[in-house]
Structure formats: structure tokens, C-alpha cells
């Protein structure tokens, strides 16, 4: 399994994501201005502040040359993981439903969060079991997941909620405690928590590894579709 991690101007967690992915496969960085995905098997849109988060989080990055290829890759069922800022980019790019709004507290929050796995059919939770508890840190100012009520109902009906904050853990006022969602096919996943920062007991927890490992299970994508 070869992971490609996109580097935008202003990405911050791209190397962390690369190191984390390299624990379960190979991983390389992909430059935002280069539309060539260099034949990777999975794409990670990392956290950070692409283009400074100016104007609106993810709004400018989604137009980067590489994103067109990512959209194509995703439409063909390729596994794509958006983390934090990457989640925001995928929403802006229309690969995932909904949007992310400023935390109700209006402040940046960096803390370890307890999460519950909702679906185990997404490309990045296949190695987890439903209702399994994960401990993964969050760090963001704009992480409040929003979608119109009827869309939220559909997401739940279609089993598109990937992670929820455990009771009392919601750091941002996210709708229905949502911490991550996926597209219908389950190959495109967006998460506010940072699994790349939960892969080593020395620097925190290890729950994040499972998410990277998931995509390596079998021929990820099509199985999910």
C-alpha cells in the first residue's frame, strides 16, 4: 500500500501523516501544484492551515492543481482521508457532505478526545469494530460539523457517520456529536481528530494506527464500494 500525502502551502501535519502512514505501508508527499498522483494507492489530505485558512477554511486549497486528480481518484473509488484541514478541504471540494464551522467556544482546542467508531465499513475504519472506543487528539478552531437536518438523517440512514465524540467529549459543538463522516461508498473519509498523532505510546495514544491499517486490509476500496 502506497500512501500519498498532499502538501499545500500552509500544511502543518503532512510530515506527521507521512510518518504515521509509513508505519503500515509506504508514504510519500505530493506537491499541491503537481496534478500527478504518482500512482499512489491512497491519498491523505493532511491537517494544517492551507493558504493560512484565509477567506474560509479549505476554500482556496480545494482549487489546487492536485485536487482535480484527487477528485477523479476518489470518484473511481480510491481511498481518500481528509484530516482536520483536509476534512474541510474535502467538504469544500464536494467529496464529502456538509461543512465545518467555528467551534462554539470560538477558540482553538488541543486535547485528547475519546471517540466512538460508528461505521466499520469505511475504507479507514474497516479494522475497527462498531462502538469501539478510540483515544485520538483534536486540535482545531473550525471543527463544528454542520449539515442540514435532513442531510444528517440521510447520513445516519446510509451509515455514513464514521466517528462520534464520546458522551461529554464534543470539543466544538458538532452536530450529533459527529467527529468524522464518509461518502456513500465509504472510500472518502473526513475526520476532525488527528489519527497521525495517535500512533506511538511515547507521544500519546495508539488508536490512530488502526485507521491507517484499515485501508491496507484486502483491496480496500472496491470492497467498501
Amino acid at each position, binding site marked *: 500500500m502506497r500512501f500519498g500525502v498532499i502538501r499545500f*502551502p*500552509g*500544511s*502543518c*501535519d503532512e*510530515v*506527521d501523516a507521512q*510518518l*504515521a502512514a509509513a508505519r503500515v505501508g509506504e508514504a510519500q508527499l505530493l506537491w499541491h501544484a503537481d496534478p500527478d498522483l504518482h500512482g499512489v494507492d491512497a491519498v491523505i489530505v493532511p491537517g*494544517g*492551515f492551507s*493558504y*493560512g*485558512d*484565509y477567506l474560509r477554511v479549505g476554500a482556496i486549497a480545494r482549487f489546487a492543481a492536485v485536487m482535480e486528480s484527487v477528485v477523479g481518484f476518489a470518484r473511481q473509488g480510491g481511498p481518500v482521508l481528509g484530516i482536520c484541514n483536509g476534512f474541510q478541504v474535502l467538504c469544500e471540494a464536494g467529496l464529502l457532505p456538509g461543512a465545518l464551522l467555528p467551534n462554539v*467556544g470560538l*477558540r*482553538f*482546542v*488541543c*486535547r485528547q478526545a475519546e471517540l466512538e467508531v460508528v461505521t466499520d465499513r469505511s475504507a479507514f475504519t474497516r479494522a475497527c469494530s462498531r462502538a469501539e472506543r478510540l483515544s485520538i*487528539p483534536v*486540535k482545531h478552531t473550525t471543527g463544528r460539523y454542520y449539515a442540514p437536518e435532513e442531510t444528517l438523517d440521510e447520513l445516519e440512514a446510509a451509515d455514513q457517520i464514521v466517528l462520534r465524540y464520546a458522551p461529554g467529549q464534543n470539543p466544538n459543538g458538532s452536530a450529533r456529536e459527529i467527529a468524522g463522516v464518509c461518502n456513500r461508498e465509504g472510500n472518502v473519509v473526513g475526520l476532525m481528530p*488527528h489519527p*497521525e*498523532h495517535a500512533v*506511538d505510546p*511515547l*507521544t*500519546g495514544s495508539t488508536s490512530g494506527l488502526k485507521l491507517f491499517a484499515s485501508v491496507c486490509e484486502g483491496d480496500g476500496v472496491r470492497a467498501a464500494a
Partner: protein
Amino acid sequence: MAATAPGAPGLERAQLLGLTEPEYALIVEKLAREPNEVELAMFSLMWSEHCAYKHSKKLLRTLPTEGPRVVMGPGENAGAVDVGDGLALAFKVESHNHPSAVEPFQGAATGVGGILRDIFAIGARPIAVLDSLRFGELDSDRSRYLLDRAVAGIGHYGNSIGVPTVGGEVYFEAPYEQNCLINAMCLGLADRERLIRSAATGPGNVLVLFGASTGRDGIGGASVLASAELGVGDEAKRPSVQIGDPFEEKKLLECSLELLERGLLVALQDLGAAGLTSSAAEMASKGEVGLDIDVARVPLREADMEPFEIMVSESQERMLCVVEPEHVTAVLEVCARWETRATAIGEVTEGGALRILRDGGPVGQLPVAALVDECPLYDLTPERPDAQLYPAPSGGSAPTDAGGALLALMGSSNLSSRRPVFEQYDCLVQSRTARRPEQADAAVLLLPARPGQEHPALAVSIDGNGRRVACDPYQGTIEAVLECVANLACVGAEPLGLTNCLNFGNPEKPHVAWQLSQCVRGLGDACRALGVPVVGGNVSLYNETADGPIYPTPVVGMVGELPDALRAAGLGFSREGDAIAVIGSVTPQLAGSELAKLRGEALPEQLPAPDIAAVSRAAAVVREAVRAGELSSAHDVAEGGLAVALAECCLAGQLGARVRLEAADGLEAALFGEGVGRFVVSGPCDRVQEVVGRGGGKVVGRVQGDHLQITFGPETKATAEGEIDVGVGELGQAHRTLSGTIA
């Protein structure tokens, strides 16, 4: 002096710009004529306190700066020490006090931006930031506003640029009410042989300015601001606020490191206070060359800027580098790839002249030496005040029962949990943080694995209790250094080097001069005794308003190394049944303590002299025990004394403790007395016994239950008057004061 020559702004303008009459006369002498507008503006900045260290340089020269591990000492943008395996660690602390008092969010943000640039200016990748903050008491709206905005600003910049903020400190004391302190420290890693200096060399080489465009930001800003007391003129100074752009800096950082990686640069220098003027002059001075700069080539944000404005602009996120002609194209290409503006603005010349041109025509010419090295240095006229300068803290009715006093202390502004602050900082990015805030006494950062060491690591701590220094500038400063040593010891780290920021009032006043010289003497003595070199720092003077000077506040940042991060001890009790011991023999004193503050007691006029040798022996015992994996926890006893230290261990581990003490000097002193050099450690009984045997100290109890119980005298006696029995939950409640106040 001769009447002002035609076209020369003259003495009066010079004085408005902060120069004294004799200084102006000296400038005229060195130029053999009166300076024109451009030259005067440049001199006024380079000869300001901020750039020239007029009142501190002589003192700073007394500090020990040598050591086997020192790679770069004071004089460069940051100091650096060898951390083995071919790696060097660069670090420095810097202040941004006055800009932050004017606009706390942008002031604090650009403060972080500035210290980051100092680190990557020498070719090191920034790996961590720490912040040291001082505000007036929490019950003041202004203090809460400044805290809220400054913390937001630091987070905004550090978080956006992908450098973790791994530690810091905040104190609330009345003397900072009108003059808050915002100090930021940055650490960076580099291959030893890749460190680059800022000396411009090679006449004919090209000077390239890259990063943000140049606007009127901070014109008459930091340098001038930082050299004059804030006062009524404040409002007038406001329009020169600089706006930080972390996105631009992120690109600048990656771009600079790539340029160095590819060996395309001869020299690199950040633009900080005094902008192009100071950077160019410093580079020329260090390389003993001259420079030609054409201001017409400088990319401007505002069309109609005067040459002097361009030369003194403090627009952020800019760097200056020297490039061999054949590499210029390559340099511009790398910058373009990072969407970073880059322009050749001049070249290195023979001789020692800094020539400012506009479209090729000279608009100013100054001898570099005069600008950089020949500003007069002043001797201080220290005078010990005959009484304590500072009024007693406006404390009041602290509970008299020990349990109540403990809860009051845990909830007091200086001791309550900093969680609402540090949760606004990304402490994780770069995947190096092995100990986060509130997990241990020092932040622990992983280094790359090396032969024979799988988890080598760095530890870093920043400390400086202004009120203690106000009690006794000499001993108080020694305490600040020892406090850092103690913090490092708790995670098993040995000190490598020290940086510092000296925040003081007006040095031209004898009592401030006395504080400053006592402080620097203490700093030097402590560092010599401990064999820890001072590799860099910063000085911020004139922190004073009509209400008087701030507490004298030396902020000490210390870095250390540990062989195995897996063994770095946390501060929290971690196992029911573990034995608890106090290592180190210090007689705790209530005078100048947090409890004394709570009770509004006057500051003493001196502090007991810490026994540096004894403290460093105790620290060594703790350090070795931690490294040997003999302990489950280690925490040093600091503000609030032993009772507070025990409470913190309970909270961090969510476990209770039963402790029995002898009441040598009275119960209160034993519980809440302060004095650096004691440690609370826990671990398996036999191991802790051994450690006590080695270290001098005493087993005082055991980790147990969900209450903190502290009793005195023989086993048989039950909890009585003057003794403590508080639930861990209750301690946690009390500790949360700050969350109520900000977040």
C-alpha cells in the same frame, strides 16, 4: 554645536527620535558632517537601547558563555549547543512586551514570528515554542483582556505555522498591570555543519531580500517603542502596529531551509527590530564588508514610501541573504516555488560603508562600524534602595486552617491550572512531544533515534518568578536558574545551556540599575557554579509606567538532554501503594511565598541564599533515579511549598496520598514555605528508600485513596488542627479558577 546644515534634520529631530545631544554630536563627529534624514533615522534605531544594548552590554559581557557543548554563543541570531549525533540545538528567548501592551493579539503573534525567524535564520528548523507571560492581577478586566488576546495571538501564530507550543508560564502580579510581559522562546534543530552565520562576505555577492513586501509597519515601532517608557504618547504610537502573517512565515521558513539545504546561501539574516537597517548593518559588520542597497528595488506594499521609511520599516516575515552571483537564479526559483517574493536589492562591497541608493543615486552613506559597534555604552549607577521598593501585594483574608489555605492556594491566580491557556496551543505537531503540559515538570521532545539510543530526547523549561526577584534580585535570579535545573532533573535531563530575557524598568534609575546588576551577577554566579553556559538571550528595559517599574523579571530558558524518553518521569502519582519521599534538605520560608502574597504580607528585603551545590546534588540524585527507572513520579517543590506540590502530584495522577511530616519550623512553614531545592518523588518502597539513602531526604508517606492527608508527628495521632484532609476532587475544583476567568 554648529547650526543645522541645510537639508539636515538636525539635533531636535534627533532628540525626538530618542538620541541624546552627546550621541548626536558623536554621530556628527563620526560622519564628519550632519546626518541627513535617512542616516539619522538609521542611527536613531541602531543606537536605540533595543539594538545597541547601551545600558546592558557591559553587564552581559560578565556572563559565562563558553562550554564544551556550545556551538554558537551570544552574538548570532540565536545560540546553539551540540546534542550529539551531528545535531545542534538552537534556542533563544525574546520579548515583545511593548508592542503587546499596545495590541496584545498582534503583539504576541508577531513576537512568536520574530523568535521563530531568529531560529531559522541560523538554519535550524523550529521544533518548539514556549511562552512566558506576566499580567496584572486576574481581578482586573484589563489583565484578563490582555491574557485572553495574547494567548490567542501566540496560538494563532504558532498553531498556523506548525511548530508546537510545548510549555510556558504565566504569573499575575499587580506591578505588571500597566506593563504586561510577553516573552517567547523557540528551539530549533539543525545538522551541526549546516548552521549558518549572518556575516556577509565576498564583495560582488548579491543581497537578496525575500518574504513579505515592505509597508509602513512599525515605523518608529519596536526599536523606539522598546526604548521609551509607555506613557500618554501611547495612542500616538498605535498606528505603527505590525500585523503577523503566519502563512507567509510558514512559506518563508520552508523556503529558507530549502535554500540552505541546497547550499545556495553565503549568509542569512532575519529582519527584526529596525528592519533592513539593522539586518544589513549587522551582516556587514560581522563580515567586515560594505553593502550597497537600492531602496527602489525593495518591493513595497505602499507606493509612496520614503527611503528612510523603507530602511526602518519593521514589516514582518522578511529575510535577507547573501548569494553568489551564479546562484541568484536558483535562489529566485526556489522562492518562486514557495510563492515567496524575492528580489536582489543590492550587493556586498569592499570597505566598510553602508550605502543607501535610490535608482542608483546615493541617498545615504554610513560607516558600518559606527552604526553597529560605536554606539556609546553606559555604565549603570546602581544604588540599593534603603527600603523594599514594592508595596505589599493586596492580598487579604486567606483561610487560617491548613486545608482551607491549601485550597485557596490551589485556586490562586499563580497556582491554578493553566489548562485554559495551553489547550489553545498545538503541542503535538511534528510528533516529538513525549511529555505535554501538566504531565511533567519539563517538556520532553524526542530526537531522532541514534546508534545505541532508541529514544534520545531533549527537555526544556522556562522560569522566572518576578516577585521572588523583587524580594532579592541576586538570590531570586539564582532561584530561577535552579528552578529550571530542578524541572529538567524531574524528567531525567541534564542541562546543556541557558538563554534568558531580562525584563526590567528604566536602567537610568539607580534602583533599577541595582536590580539589573544584582540579577546579572546572580545569573552569572549560578551558571558558573552549575557549569551551564549562557548561549543567548534578550534584554527588555523601560518596562515601567507612572506607577513605577515592573517586578525585575529575568526569564530563564534552559534546555537539557536525556538518554531515554521512555523513562522521563511524569509529575503525577501513578501507583496506589507507592512510597512518597521528599528529596533535598531546604528549610522552607514563608516570607515571599505565595501564601504570604495571599495574606497581603510585605515582601521581605532578602531571601535566604540557596546552597547551589546542595541543590544540584539533590537534582543529580533525582535525575539519576529517574534515568534508572527507579521512580514512578518526580516533581519539584516550588510556589506554594510542599503541600501544593503534593496536591499537584495527586491531581496529575488522580490518586490520593497519606503523608506524615515533622513540624520542625512550625506547621505552616513546613506545608507552604518556599525555597528551591526539594523534590517530591514516588515509587516502589525499596527503590525510594535507596534513593533517599543516596540523596538525603525522607520517606514521608504513601500513595493511597482519593484524599490528600497530611498529618504531623507520630503515627498514632489522628488528623487534627493544622493538618490537612482534602479530597482530590475538591483540589481539582479549586485548581480550575482560570477556566472560569478566560476560556
